[in-house]
């Protein structure tokens, strides 16, 4: 039960940060593919680096163990990514 409350709480901050970064607007998402507004890349890479450093530090201190890493199956990831990119550039979501 407490797990679900944490999920709700974290979700609120997730949605909040997405909204404040402006990534809910069509022009912000599409313009990264035109190289005019790199906000999507900046946002994604910043969160990736911050989370990566934090998690690896915590794992080094022995405080957590990583959950199941998403499976790497090259064909699926690439094909899925290609299809996903088409949808993302069209809709801006």
């Amino acid at each position, binding site marked *: 039960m407490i797990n679900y409350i944490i999920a709700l709480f*974290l979700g609120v901050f997730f949605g909040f940060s*997405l909204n404040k970064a402006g990534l809910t607007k069509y*022009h912000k998402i*599409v313009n990264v593919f035109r190289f005019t507004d790199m906000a999507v890349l900046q946002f994604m890479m910043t969160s990736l680096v911050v*989370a990566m450093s*934090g998690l690896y530090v915590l794992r080094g201190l022995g405080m957590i163990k*990583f*959950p199941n890493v998403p499976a790497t199956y090259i064909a699926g990831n690439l*094909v899925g990514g290609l299809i996903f990119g088409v949808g993302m550039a069209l809709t*801006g979501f």
Partner: protein
Amino acid sequence: MNWISKQFRNELWSPYAAGILLGIVGILAVWLSDSLLGASGAFERVAGMLGKAVAPTTFNNLYFNTIMPSKISWGVILLVGVILGGTLGAWTSKTLKFRLNDDAQWKAIFGPQVWKRWLIAFLGAIVLEYGAGIAGGCTSGLAISGGMLLAPAAFLFIAAMFASGILTALVVYRSRY
């Protein structure tokens, strides 16, 4: 204290600041709940639940039974939180409004009709979710959550996503690139 409340009311943050916030959220997700952030999985579970209620035999296959079981999971609650959080963000900057089609750049390319925006949004979202199902996640679930664990899948996904996205933008925007 005044500075913090002024920052909350700001409509657009620097992507670096918002990215730091999301990174902390990602760390907390693994630390407190041993789960990864993600959005497309939650949509697929809800779709599976609705589908099984309406057409049980069609949805009785491997994907919806084991890979993405159709129940209210951690991810579904997270998605509810995301919707609330986005609303909260818009509310604190006084930009909360029910919009039908208000993006100026979209209107410049496709025209101002509302049905066009909704149709392309619907079809494009079908494409999007289908691709996410094949890849095993979306930007938050695979690219960010996978990337923060340094999974190779995440980086393959990001590369493919940008390749096709740039091509699609080229096609859509043609001379106005």
